[in-house]
């Protein structure tokens, strides 16, 4: 019996859907989308949006079947979940040259074009992270690198990626130095300072590199990590001096 149910389910899974069965104007839910868009569903499930706390079809595509791609490709469908319009993810992109071009020209672009072949004068969230329409590995460096090469030479892209890795590695060394500073004295205050350095400032640096925003690489990134590092050291120093005086 179980076998029969499985076979029936498998049949439903692979059944082709004809044009005549396109949904009408009534609102859809994720289950309805998944019933037809099976290939996309497989890649979506494997990527970050397909996880339990991820994003379903209607989160980006709305509940209506009309022109859903054109809408989902635009930045507004991403920023609501990714920190809002003024959050670090959107702001680091908006202040990059790519983001500037999208701000100035995006309203005139044909958003029905697929996300490849430099169909957009500047890349957007979806152009890089969902290049070629992939719904899966949005943070995969392969996917991202491929999108850069629609406009930039492979040598330029490789040089920038390698340089970005080195810039991030230096950030990791600053984190390691901060943690080593309070190594044998992990007071909650030090741990909290360290966690902010790691989750906020280091993230800024990563966003600055990924989105090519000089401000996020430097002022909100490395120069801010310098401040975090010396403030952790200062807190540890003060603690040690007070202990030596018998004040703690």
């Amino acid at each position, binding site marked *: 019996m179980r076998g029969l149910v499985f076979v029936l389910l498998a049949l439903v899974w692979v059944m082709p859907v004809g044009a005549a069965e396109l949904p009408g104007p009534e609102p859809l839910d994720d289950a309805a989308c998944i019933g037809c868009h099976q290939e996309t569903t497989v890649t979506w499930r494997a990527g970050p949006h397909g996880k339990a706390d991820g994003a379903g079809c209607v989160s980006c595509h709305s509940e209506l079947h009309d022109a859903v791609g054109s809408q989902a490709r635009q930045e507004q469908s991403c920023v609501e979940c990714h920190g809002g319009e003024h959050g670090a993810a959107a702001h680091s992109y908006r202040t990059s040259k790519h983001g500037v071009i999208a701000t100035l020209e995006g309203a005139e672009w044909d958003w029905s074009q697929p996300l490849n072949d430099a169909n957009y004068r500047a890349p957007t969230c979806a152009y890089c992270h969902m290049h070629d329409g992939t719904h899966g590995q949005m943070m995969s460096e392969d996917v991202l690198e491929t999108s850069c090469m629609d406009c930039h030479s492979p040598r330029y892209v490789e040089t920038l990626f390698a340089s970005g890795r080195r810039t991030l590695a230096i950030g990791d060394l600053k984190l*390691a130095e901060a943690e080593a500073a309070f190594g044998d004295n992990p007071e909650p205050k030090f741990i909290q300072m360290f966690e902010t350095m790691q989750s906020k400032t280091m993230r800024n640096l990563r966003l600055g590199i990924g989105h090519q925003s000089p401000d996020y690489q430097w*002022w909100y990134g490395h120069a801010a990590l310098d401040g975090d590092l010396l403030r952790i050291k200062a807190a540890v120093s003060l603690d040690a001096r007070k202990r030596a005086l018998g004040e703690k």
Partner: protein
Amino acid sequence: MFHPLRVLLAAFILLTVTPANAGMDKDAKGTGLYGDEWRPDAVHEYWDPEAYHKSETDLVEGRFTGEECIECHEGITPGIVKDWRQSRHSSPTSGEPVTCNACHGDDHQKLRFPSPADCGSCHENQHTEFQEEKRYGFPGHTLAMERAVDAKHFVDKPKAEVTACLQCHSVASKCDSCHTRHRFNAAEARRPEACLTCHSGPPHPDDETYFASAHGQKYLAEGADWDWSKPLTKGNYPAPTCAYCHMTGGKHQVADKAIWKFGIREVNPKTAENEVKRKRWIAVCTDCHEEGESREWLEEPDDERKRAWTQLYKAEDELKSLRSDDHIYPAAGERPPYPTDWLDSVLPFERIGFYEGQASAFYNVSEIERDYFEMWYFNNLAAYKGMAHGAEKITSEAHVRLNQDLEKIRRKAAELRELSRKEIESGSNVDPKPLWLHGPYSDINREQN
């Protein structure tokens, strides 16, 4: 928590992910005052192509016409070809199209990135204006690269860390900072957004202050409908933009009216030279406003700067007094010196204030010195930019922060004095060196700069 393996991995990446770059000379030296002291990162070839870019020689051989370049690159890098097709270069109002080989050369083994001088071979006036900007000193665009590489922190820090500096300071070495490739559109460069990739953030919130001003609000409401093909002259735009005021009439200079010098140091705004600059400002403002009104407005930054510098000098005095009483912890000899600063290694000295080199004193310093750096470089500059761009709220909020900074610095200075007094009394002495001199970053910074 932070995994120790990540530290090993980070060190591995720094030492082994070597410049994946076919072209750049492995022995390439740095540029500027300290050029012998540092080696560029591979990516620097894109921020200062004239100094570092070398053409790839093992990819394609031969000489090509523009049409041949386009035939291949339409498939390889379609974006740049699409951009070029929409540019004036592809369909000029007179003469032949300007194709790839005009700017990059025709020999695929000797390709070059066009420098401002290359662009200047056709755009002669713009290039001459741009070069002549140097006479006004810094801040300005033409001297931006020199300013970056001559900074002590740039020389001192690992080059992969400070590449971000060059992304903006490369405005001196590439025209596409403002006219993005390969469309090179004058209209794009006239829009305020064209400036904000570099002119935003804590030390230069031009973006934030302009858009908060009445001028910026008008632009945000109506700017999309203005005709951006028009030159930057009287009557063409209902509200001014960055370029309208700072590059009056489209002149490729931004420094010819710089009176207050970014707010970085105190200036006498009433010198004869600054009177000439003030007249230039009044000439721009009077495109829309009355002359008397314009002159009055331009005196507001004079007063605002006085107020800001009064507070900054009070904070500097606190720090200098701590320094002379030996209360700065760690003191200059107890933390990494700047490798290129011989005086610092012989006679360790905390740098306090603009003229002593405070601009580089934002890392490897004590907390109170960093507090002063942030007061001076973030809140002071926000106050100035808000005033200059007509964003009163940003200026008044920044002045509240400047007062708070001064209070904080005074409170901390008093605490440091008290702590030192107790230590002297009790004979307690905690050596700062083990904590401040070494660590995974400080060690690699000393060796790998």
